[in-house]
């Protein structure tokens, strides 16, 4: 009978050990101790259980206790492993990890691809759906352009690409660029290659006629940015609130733009004495800057100003609200 109990305890213990539940082990230890005590007392009262079998049970419990301690102390060390077998194991483990990580990465790529695909098809759908708006409405087109640039898609990158096939947008900006060049060249002799962006827009609108798609200042800026690829022939100068398109490859430094800003405050003209009093420049500096602007054809002189007592004043046609024609 004790053998059966023994075997049972052993089995449960083993089970518990394999689960490594410390509380249960302690419970078993206390249980074993209690049985030992009980055996000793029963010997005195000539009990049912023989002394020898009682001792046998106590040894069993003690053995199990040792076994327990052994397992708990030594198992972690064993798990860490030593020797060739352990290295093999470690290698295998690493390999398994690698395969798992590869699996995860490929899954991620697959997912990203799927997302991109969805995005592209959505964008295409959007583009097709709003094709008319994109082509006709300049404000809408700007927003679309902004959205595309944020996610790194450039509808202008190629006129053979998806965008031009879908929208004809690529061609749109090339066409506009040619018109910009056309207008800039036409007025170069009177404004020296400087033209205010609003004036330019008006002229291009007139040139395209009423039937053509509406264009905005932003469209012109986008086109000019594209023209920069051809060299530094086209540039946009910021004269305070005004944007001036420069169509000649002339290096204008800060002094030149300062003069333009000064003239901008002065109904489009300035004079050496105005510049001297407002900017505090030397006579030489003023005359050299004005000479450059005059020689480039950006300034026109006027020697009949009564207000300035016959001092020659310099006008900048590019600052006027309409072209000098």
């Amino acid at each position, binding site marked *: 009978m004790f053998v059966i109990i023994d075997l049972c305890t052993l089995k449960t213990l083993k089970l518990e050990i394999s689960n490594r539940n410390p509380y249960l082990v302690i419970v078993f230890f206390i249980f074993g101790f209690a049985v030992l005590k009980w055996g000793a007392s029963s010997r005195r009262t000539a009990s049912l259980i023989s002394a020898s079998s009682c001792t046998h049970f106590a040894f069993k419990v003690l053995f199990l206790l040792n076994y327990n301690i052994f397992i708990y102390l030594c198992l972690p060390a064993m798990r860490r492993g030593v020797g060739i077998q352990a290295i093999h194991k470690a290698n295998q483990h690493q390999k398994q990890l690698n395969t798992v990580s590869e699996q995860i990465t490929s899954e991620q790529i697959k997912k990203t691809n799927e997302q991109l695909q969805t995005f592209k098809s959505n964008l295409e759908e959007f583009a097709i759906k709003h094709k008319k708006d994109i082509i006709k409405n300049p404000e809408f087109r700007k927003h679309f352009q902004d959205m595309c640039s944020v996610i790194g898609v450039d509808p202008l990158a190629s006129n053979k690409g998806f965008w031009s096939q879908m929208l004809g947008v690529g061609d749109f900006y090339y066409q506009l660029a040619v018109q910009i060049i056309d207008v800039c060249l036409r007025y170069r*002799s*009177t404004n*020296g290659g400087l033209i205010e962006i609003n004036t330019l827009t008006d002229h291009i609108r007139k040139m395209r006629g009423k039937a053509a798609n509406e264009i905005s200042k932003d469209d012109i800026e986008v086109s000019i940015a594209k023209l920069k690829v051809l060299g530094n022939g086209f540039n946009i100068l910021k004269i305070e609130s005004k944007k001036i398109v420069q169509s000649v490859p002339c290096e204008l430094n800060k002094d030149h733009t300062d003069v333009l800003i000064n003239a901008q405050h002065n109904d489009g*003209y300035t004079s050496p004495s105005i510049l001297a009093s407002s900017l505090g420049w030397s006579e030489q500096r003023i005359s050299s800057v004005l000479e450059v602007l*005059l*020689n480039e*054809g950006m300034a*026109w*002189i*006027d*020697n*009949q*100003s*009564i207000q300035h007592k016959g001092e020659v004043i310099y*006008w900048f*046609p590019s600052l*006027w609200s*309409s072209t*000098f*024609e």
Partner: protein
Amino acid sequence: MSFQFPSYYSREPFFTIQPVLNTRKKQLEMWIDLVLSYCRYNKVYEIDINEYIKKDHKLFYNEKINRRLSNESTKIIFEEMIEIGNGEWLDKDKNRVMVWWRKPEEWATLIYKWVLDSGQTNQVLTLWEIQKGDDTKNQEFYDLDTNVLIKSLKVLEKQSKAQVFQGTDSNLGVKFFSI
């Protein structure tokens, strides 16, 4: 309706001859354009520079912006105009100038076309008939300046399309030929 001046007429530096060559070239072009279209509109064939300037004629004086062309500036412009074949000095002092808002060659073509269209080849016409005749009322050369008309007919003479001859009473007559 009076003549509509172009927008550049109200720009102050337009009335000062520009020192930079390219700019000046453009400016003279614009002035010649203005003078020719003004003369065409008002059928002016002859300009007396001194008189125009003395009288503050609005062609050379913009009252609104208080800018005017000086005598020298005006002469520079007319020199250029004559250079490109749109006029002729009438005196040595270069005060009076003939403005050809159509060149004599152009007038010649117009007149000859009218003669052909109205079937008047091989007939003798007086200059007066061309200038004031009932048949030419709708033509652009109606009321054409006599000097210009004679110049134009001389062009046709050179092309052997017409012959000018002295008629009675010192009136000139012209005979057109079909070629």
